[in-house]
């Protein structure tokens, strides 16, 4: 069979995407820039920066909380981290807001950036001003950003609920935060076969980067298998005898969010195996009730013998028996 011209597609993709971007930008070039759209509302007199100490006058609780906040550290390092640090680095210049002295009818009151009312993309753009590399490198392309899930939906800057220097979450821990939207995962995590999320040894962010990633489903690796090999490097191979669906995708057989089958398998053995193996003799045998005495149905079923199912490096291991 003729090999696909993958390189051609790589080139086409590599060229079309930037071209598309340029087109999109051109369409938007006639209007104001993103930076201006995320700026605080305009005022008749342009507000100026007044410093965090001014904010403390009315917002003492927030100011005190900020002193133990990771963002306070940026304040210590001044311009090494950003042009501005402290309250106004996120909320914008506060002179007009301060002059309004709590009077909501004063036009100056609303000149600071209020993260509860601005659009999600605008809110996240403020955070992205500093958090642009490392974990957040793929934020703008992430499904969360696409679905208008702003940073402040998950992170609480002033009153985080997470303890122990965690990532300032709006919930007591990562798992509780994620299931507020991904509710169906609470069913999966409660299944008999599960990874140690309920016990706290892992959490959703152990495998997923909620800020976006290079892989599908925001996983912390380029492919599913690469992610699984992080903890299960024994399966990484390459092996002499490989099991093709194992090599392509661990999810062909495993359901990592939880399963009522042993080893978080997507189906009970031998039925899972028999979805692909209908060979003559025992692979295709109907194991029904009288066959409970068969070692091909009982206990570990097919893997009672074919235990090297992830691949074998034994010269006689083609059938994953050795």
């Amino acid at each position: 069979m003729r090999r696909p011209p993958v390189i051609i597609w790589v080139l086409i993709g590599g060229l079309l995407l930037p071209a598309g971007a340029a087109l999109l930008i051109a369409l938007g070039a006639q209007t104001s820039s993103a930076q201006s759209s995320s700026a605080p509302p305009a005022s008749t007199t342009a507000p100026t920066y007044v410093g965090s100490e001014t904010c403390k006058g009315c917002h003492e609780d927030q100011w005190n909380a900020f002193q133990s906040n990771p963002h306070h550290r940026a304040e210590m390092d001044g311009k090494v981290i950003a042009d501005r640090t402290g309250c106004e680095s996120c909320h914008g210049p506060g002179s007009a807001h301060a002059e309004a002295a709590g009077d909501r009818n004063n036009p100056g009151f609303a000149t600071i950036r209020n993260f509860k009312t601005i659009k999600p993309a605008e809110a996240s753009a403020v955070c992205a001003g500093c958090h642009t590399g490392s974990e957040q490198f793929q934020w703008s392309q992430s499904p969360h950003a696409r679905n208008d899930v702003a940073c402040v939906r998950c992170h609480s800057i002033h009153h985080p609920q997470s303890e122990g220097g965690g990532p300032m979450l709006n919930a007591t821990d990562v798992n509780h935060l994620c299931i507020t939207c991904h509710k169906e995962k609470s069913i999966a995590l409660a299944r008999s076969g599960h990874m140690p999320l309920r016990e706290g040894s892992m959490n959703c962010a152990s495998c997923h980067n909620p800020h976006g990633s290079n892989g599908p489903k925001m996983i912390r690796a380029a492919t599913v298998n690469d992610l699984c090999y992080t903890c299960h490097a024994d399966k990484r191979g390459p092996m002499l005898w490989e099991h093709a669906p194992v090599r392509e995708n661990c999810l062909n057989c495993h359901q990592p969010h939880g399963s009522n089958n042993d080893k978080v398998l997507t189906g009970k053995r031998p039925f899972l195996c028999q979805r692909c193996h209908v060979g003559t003799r025992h692979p295709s045998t109907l194991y029904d009730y009288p066959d409970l005495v068969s070692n091909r149905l009982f206990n570990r079923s097919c893997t009672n013998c074919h235990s090297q199912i992830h691949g074998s490096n034994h010269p006689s291991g083609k059938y994953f028996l050795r």
Partner: protein
Amino acid sequence: MTTFRTAMITALACGVALVAIGGESRAQGNQFTIGGQWWDQSAPEAKYQEFRQVPFGGFVQSFLVREMAGRNTVTLWGANAIRADQATRLTWNNGARWRVDLGYAQIPHTFSEIARWGWFQSAPGVFGLPDSLQAANQRTPANYTKNMNDYLYSSAPYIPLTHTTKNTTARIRVRPARGWQFELKATDRTRDGSKAYGMSFGFNTALENPEPIDQRTVDAEGTADYHRDRLTFQAGAGLSTFDNHVSELLVDNPKRLTDQVNGDGAAVGKMDLYPDNTTVRGTLSVGYTLPRYTALTAVLQVAQTTQNDQFLDFTNNSALNSAQKLTRDSLAAQSLDGKARQINSVVSVSSRPIGRLDGTATFRYTDYDNRTEERTWIGMAPYEATWQRFVQNGQYALESPALDNKQWSTDLDVNYAFTPRVRAGGIAEYHVRDRNDREVEKDKETILGARLRLLPIDAVTVTARYTHGDRKADQFLTDDYLGLKTRSAIGSTPNLYDSLGFIEQPGLRRFDVADRKEDHLISDIAYSPNDRIDLSGSYIYQRDDFARDTTLGLQEVQLHQIALLGVIHVNAKLDLNGGYGWGKGKTFQRSRQSNAANVSYNPVDNWTARINEQETYASAGFDWLPRNRVTVSASYTFSRDATDYDLDNGAHNAVDLPSTFYRLHESVLDVSWQWLKSTSVIGRWGWEQYSVDDFATEDVPLIFPTTGTSTAIYLGDSSQSYRANRLALLVRHTF
């Protein structure tokens, strides 16, 4: 371990000292919680402590020490200290300039507390039986079942079937100048203990052994980030090594004291365990932002994995080696010299060109290029009794393929806000997968979908996302399907199928490469009228239809799920939370029975399995302050799964397998009394009830079947129902 703890304590001491030198220190929310606990469990089922250690007696639940002085902040956090599931993390920040993290965590995984095993281990992975027993079984095979039954039930001791993963992590992050960030991180992951592992002798003897696990994985990675104005640049390099310190299993055959050709085979069987491997990788990433929230990112990652463990011999059976004249030189190579290169790249652009329109386009490419040499083997001894020679047209024909695969996809996701309350979008994806040595070498999938978000009133958000995927194989390669390339014929007759069986029957399409239509709907409604009430519910539907071209194999998978979640902040003294989930899954698969060597073309031999699974989940909890200084909190979780196995065949005499059933009730009640200003006393009662009914894992005997001719020896690690209660008294002190 001791070294690590010493290092951590030293680091902490140094940190605290530096903080003190740096100026007046301030404590921030420090606390510890310690206490004592008593518990009982009605049956020793491993599920209770599968991934944790439930403490008995005195224990440390958690501690947090955070000291700040000037630019320095040192945080020491820990949970479950000195227990099998302990976790400790030390963080030291110097402003935002640099940060050091050290962590240590253990994850126990207990499989069984009632396993019994009759072999003895003379060295890691070397399992022996009394020679007299092997001799007796060899001399009088008819007494094998009785001999082993008597021996195992009288002599097999209980053994731990558990392993522990110990993760030690270190990370240093430095921001030396504006826009620059460097990070070095390393993880040392060791895993030791044992787990059940199967092995076979001959065609009808399965043995379950406690595979000794002594593995180590070390990962190290360095990244450099540069950010200036619109440009972000990231470069990284990493290394990962895996070492398996027990690389083979040597197990005495209970049926033989001496080697034999055919029959029960070798006196001692040898299995190859997972080989050592090493991966190196490098990554380059570039991001550029433009006006209108436009961002371009491109990532290129190159990795190479190598594996070169020495091959074992074809068999440990000296009689077979002698009969077939097998030596080390008979192997096609002495080691694999395996090499797989992987390239991953992602190019993505996202933008909001006009206020209401946003879109993202992503191109992903992954190439797993297995550069291991494909070798031709003269045959094999799959269970160390019988030699299987693979010859076709007079040539050896057993080839070890180097499986590789390529996958690429383009995704386009566009949304338009028609009004502030109505936002709709479209999804278009195209996926191509390309592989070698399989019946489908290339398949393509088109996914089209729509997304909608409505805000009918201020307090309500409704979202829905529907996609339809259509995957099609380019062509079906019958020779690869039948395994002619590697399985071929025994003897010299061209295209005579392997007389040993394992020939796939016509009509099967394996589900991972079969043509498939997939419908997926996820919808959600959320009601949040104010800061005190959050109610939401979701419905998920998925249907995978393989039946179009598939006679045998997986035909259909269907899933419905409903999930509800509610959090109500009733007042300053009472918070309520609850959740409910319900799911129904159906799979339908068809196979064709053929007990003879030859394939069956008769649909009367077909049989089907309809597997219907229904699960329920519920949770409820509250936090209540009934009076000053007293806090009561409770949580309850319930999960239940029932699965039916509806079997049918051409003669309609198939008998359904018994249904399987899992149920877990879990509840915890905490009553906390603030005794002193900084000290609280907590009383805790925990209750669990686990019920299991599974034909495959209940009442696992040591020898199976218990009557007639036995075909397996197991570890007896049955799953069991249990009930457990625990009572704890804790003290939490803040300082």
